[in-house]
């Protein structure tokens, strides 16, 4: 059947190519309308209970899209009119920024921060610095004292050394467009900056905005990489088609997929650019194999380009399809993790790989059928071919001697064991403080460190406290339980501080008792607490206490500030909340996890964490099934498993060594990379099988496979490794740099497995699906030359590889 399709495509090659051009052109138009942006809800596993809590309460208790801006002075303290004016100005400017939740801007200059004090007129509750700044020096001094006396402000919104203040602002998830919001925020911050006054900001919108801002740089690096690939292909292949076909093929399939997702209304996350790159590397790999296969047929005497193309297509169809199928399978397994971002990445990846069946596996041979015999000459020849042949000869000798083959397997097993040991250290979630997307010395991460050093923390989580009836939150036993809960949480590493309704009540109670700190506590009855709250909120908007409780005092929140969002910190904190709720239950009250950025990340991490082992197991199942089906032998399924496991353990141990955590951004890359391990192996194994069917000699078929498919492996690996390291050198985004390194690592691992480990395994194990099936497929004519090609032998100048076979003459009949 394959044969028939191949022949049909090549026979109607003009029609085929015309269709391809039209489809590509149409898709290209749609691809230009591609929506490249970060959508926050893409990050959220919608069914997770934490996300549901976040969705229910985020409008009042504060969601995950929040920004913290710190204003800090060099000398003295912030209690000077110009500095206070800056804080007020930033606060006011923030109201003009798109998608801002007007009720969730908090700073000294908002109504929310109040001073409750005793005066001759009784107890007053007045905003600290709203609507106006203090009028004079006296007023500034009074403000300073009021701030110090107020524990909901001092240490929370003004640093303990009085040198810094923060302004926090929440954004409305469904309205936020990071590409628009970030420049506006930057303008606000820039307007406030001046000598002696440092203004810095952190938060999810800032981070997402920074990534978008780096998009042009990312595209420039992509351009450089494409150029590098072209150059290396030209040097190694020598011909224009050798350079262009792989690039065209990956570009064409890319256009189809980008056009399709644009049509489907799916957005492309800016960080997914690395993934698209990883996938197009597959197209290049397959294209190089097809090119090499075609060359091989022609060197072996099939001078008619159409015929050579047909044979190439026929021979490489199975390993190519198998490689693509396992890749697509591994990719689709990612979609089982119920996070929209991962589902989208998986669908895009699988579609792209599917497109390669036509856009690469079939299109390349069709294009090759136009190559005119005799008219081709090498544009560049630096002797790369000869060096490769010599190297492959070395690999052949290494793998076709019992001793050295055993040694190769021994080393591979050792690597598997060692990397398997270290792979267990892989962290789910972020492994380091700051954002893993950026370098530790980036301005953003520096700002993050500076803010989290002086304030309880810029990463927020709320735990909802749900009561069974109105005024539950005024109950002393409930408030006391909440206070204990806060103390329990604050003892956890990484928790910078917590706030709740109890923190509103306690200072007011103290003021009611002549400012005596012995009364820095909640009231002894529901009624007293109600009175205290009434005083605390007199003259304020109902929304002013919304961060801590609803207007009925039935449901409230404990607000927590985290100094970092490391996976371990989040996991420990979430477990601590559960432990406390279990050990200290209060009748009529339920603690519900969890909202805010940390709550969302906790949900994401839990989903990834519980899914990672399943994903790997499923990916291995997919591989086993496909291999067993393709070779009609369970042995084939067993044979390739260790390679994928090896690729897996090496990836994970590299990630844990580099401190790269498994999160929504790295997971798809890791999942797709895992499939990379076997791609090449299929080509090699298939060539060995093909060779053995004709020669009956294991040594000779391995040599044949290495010199044909092995050549493609080296070229692809060299091309990809040399180009992806450009990420590392030029990207300001740490994520891309690290993923570049990771891709290079995979390429190396899979190339080594394919060139050395697979042949050694085949040589030693003699699997039946390779050696036991001679003649089970119809062998097309003109492909009996299962030794090395003549040119390679000549280049290498090695006697033992130029051995002629009797079949050679037959090939020319």
């Amino acid at each position, binding site marked *: 059947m394959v044969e028939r399709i191949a022949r049909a495509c090549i026979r109607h090659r003009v029609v085929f190519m015309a269709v391809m051009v039209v489809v590509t052109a149409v898709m290209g138009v749609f691809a230009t309308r591609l929506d490249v942006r970060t959508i926050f809800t893409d990050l959220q596993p919608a069914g997770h209970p934490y996300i549901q809590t976040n969705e229910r309460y985020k409008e009042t208790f504060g969601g995950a899209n929040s920004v913290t801006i710190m204003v800090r002075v060099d000398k003295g303290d912030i209690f000077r009119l110009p500095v206070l004016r800056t804080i007020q100005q930033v606060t006011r400017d923030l109201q003009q920024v798109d998608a801002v939740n007007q009720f969730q801007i908090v700073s000294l200059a908002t109504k929310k921060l109040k001073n409750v004090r005793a005066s001759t007129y009784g107890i007053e509750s007045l905003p600290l610095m709203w609507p106006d700044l203090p009028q004079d020096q006296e007023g500034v001094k009074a403000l300073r*004292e009021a701030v*110090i*006396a107020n524990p909901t402000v*001092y240490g929370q919104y003004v640093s*303990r*050394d*009085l040198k810094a203040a923060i302004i926090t602002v929440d954004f409305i998830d469904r309205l936020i467009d990071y590409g628009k919001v970030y420049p506006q925020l930057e303008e606000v911050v820039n307007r406030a900056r001046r000598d002696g006054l440092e203004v810095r900001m952190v938060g999810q919108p800032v981070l997402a905005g920074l990534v978008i801002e780096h998009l042009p740089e990312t595209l420039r690096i992509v351009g450089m990489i494409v150029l590098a690939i072209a150059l290396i292909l030209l040097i190694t292949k020598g011909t224009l088609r050798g350079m262009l076909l792989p690039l065209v093929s990956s570009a064409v399939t890319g256009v189809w997929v980008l056009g399709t997702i644009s049509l489907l209304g799916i957005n492309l996350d800016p960080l997914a650019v690395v993934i698209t790159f990883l996938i197009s590397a597959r197209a290049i790999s397959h294209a190089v194999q097809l090119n090499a296969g075609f060359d091989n047929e022609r060197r072996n005497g099939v001078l008619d380009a159409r015929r050579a193309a047909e044979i190439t297509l026929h021979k490489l169809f199975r390993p190519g399809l198998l490689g693509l199928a396992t890749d697509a399978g591994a990719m689709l397994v990612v979609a089982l993790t119920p996070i929209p971002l991962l589902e989208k990445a998986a669908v895009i990846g699988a579609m792209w790989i599917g497109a390669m069946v036509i856009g690469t596996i079939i299109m390349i041979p069709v294009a090759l059928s136009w190559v005119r015999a005799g008219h081709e000459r090498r544009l560049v020849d630096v002797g790369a071919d000869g060096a490769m042949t010599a190297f492959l000869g070395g690999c052949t000798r290494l793998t076709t001697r019992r001793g050295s083959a055993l040694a190769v397997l021994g080393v591979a097993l050792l690597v598997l064991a060692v990397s398997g040991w270290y792979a267990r250290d892989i962290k789910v979630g972020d492994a380091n403080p700051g954002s893993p997307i950026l370098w530790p010395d980036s301005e953003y991460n520096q700002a993050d460190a500076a803010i989290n050093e002086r304030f309880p923390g810029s990463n927020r989580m709320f735990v909802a406290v749900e009561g069974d009836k109105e005024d539950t939150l005024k109950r002393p036993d409930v408030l*006391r339980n909440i*206070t*204990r809960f*806060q*103390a329990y949480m*604050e*003892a*956890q*590493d990484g928790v910078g*501080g*917590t706030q709740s309704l109890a923190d509103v009540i306690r200072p007011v109670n103290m003021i009611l008792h*002549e*400012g*005596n*700190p*012995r009364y*820095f*506590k909640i009231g*002894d009855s529901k009624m007293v607490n109600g009175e205290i709250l009434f005083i605390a909120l007199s003259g304020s908007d109902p929304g002013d206490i919304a961060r801590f409780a609803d207007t009925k005092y039935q449901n409230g929140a404990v607000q927590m500030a985290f100094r970092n969002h490391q996976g371990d910190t989040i*996991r*420990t904190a*979430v*477990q*601590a909340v559960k432990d406390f709720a279990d050990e200290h239950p209060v009748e009529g009250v339920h603690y519900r996890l969890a909202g805010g950025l940390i709550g969302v990340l906790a949900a994401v991490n*839990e989903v990834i*964490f*519980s899914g*990672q*082992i*399943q994903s790997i*197991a*499923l990916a*291995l*199942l997919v591989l*086993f099934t496909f291999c*067993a089906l393709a070779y009609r032998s*369970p*042995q084939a*399924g*067993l044979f390739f*498993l260790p390679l994928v496991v090896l690729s897996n353990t090496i990836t994970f141990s590299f990630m844990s060594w580099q401190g790269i955590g498994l999160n929504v951004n790295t997971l798809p890359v890791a999942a797709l990379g895992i499939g990379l391990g076997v791609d090449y192996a299929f080509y090699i194994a298939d060539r060995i099988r093909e060779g053995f069917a004709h020669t009956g000699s294991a040594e000779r078929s391995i040599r044949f496979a290495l010199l044909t498919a092995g050549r493609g492996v080296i070229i692809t690996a060299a091309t990809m490794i040399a180009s992806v390291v450009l990420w590392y050198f030029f990207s300001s985004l740490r994520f891309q740099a690290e993923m570049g390194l990771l891709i290079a690592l995979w390429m190396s691992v899979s190339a080594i497995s394919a060139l050395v480990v697979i042949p050694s395994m085949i040589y030693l194990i003699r699997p039946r699906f390779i050696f036991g099936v001679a003649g089970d497929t119809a062998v097309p004519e003109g492909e009996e030359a299962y030794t090395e090609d003549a040119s390679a032998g000549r280049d290498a100048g090695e006697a033992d590889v130029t051995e002629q076979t009797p079949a050679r003459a037959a090939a020319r009949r």
Partner: protein
Amino acid sequence: MARRHFAHALEITLSVLILAGLFYVAFFVKPAVDVPEVRRSAIEPRDNFYGVAAPGDDGAVVWAAGRSGKIIRSEDGGEHWHAQNTPVFHHIQDIAAWDADTAVAAGDQGTVLITQDGGDDWQAVDAPTRPRGGDQFLRVRIDAQGRAWITGTMGVVLVSDDRGRSWRLTHPKQDIGWNDVTVAPDGTVWLVGEFGTIKRSGDDGASWEEVDSPTDSSLMAVTFRDAGHAVAVGLSGTVLTTSDGGTHWQTRKAGTGAHLFDVAWDGARYIAVGNGGALVTGNADGERWTAGSIAAGNFGWYTEVTAVAGHTYITGQTLGTLADGQWRAFHSRPAPENDEEASRNG
């Protein structure tokens, strides 16, 4: 032939096993989160300790009591602390100790706790209270005769002759909060409290006599250096002194408007602490007072100061010591499991 069959069988078995294993892992293995047990620190960020006691002559054994029924103890002058179990979750407002083993603590909602074994076991004891706020105990003191005194709101003054096991009310009901009690070297019992009120009793609390006070500001603490000289401090920077055993009190300029919550005599000077990190010191005759700060940038509130053998312990928003004028806040270092036992036995 047999070998081939064997290999075949092995291969099928392996395949089935691996497939079954993968299926099992994929659908039934739920990885569990392994969270390390958080070791509770003796001093946690949210802790406030209202009272501090350092029994003995060397000041090495220190107790502090405060928020949510928490009592901590150090055996080495504050280097290491460990938390002790108490049966209450209300605030403990003060702690006083006869010696390193025997101590009493008092606080909110009529809470009185005693220990006879250094705090391994804190027991709640019954103490008389009054309705409508008369269960708010504020201060506990031990006098030279070994009696324990507790003051509180609604005119509550309690005394115990048996190291805290039983208590009796010694002051009639009155809508006044007594913030401190002290027994002067001559045996006179002194009370200070709201509205600047000062009272004394020459008969161990059987009867009380109000003394003229030059202030309306609430007085928070009183201390006698000797039978003749005493200092009382209070809200809004109030400092009163007497040099005639308490018959006449004079107002002194403290140099600060901050509330002052406690005062102690360290053998060379008076030390008073209060709001906003205020540290006010006075000379022996109580005439010259200097307002300063516990430490630059420290704006916390402090409720008690205790001076023993060169150690000056100050507690409130944070807990620390003042040595040679240098403030050092205590931080918690979780003690090794056996540390507690070892240091007690040692």
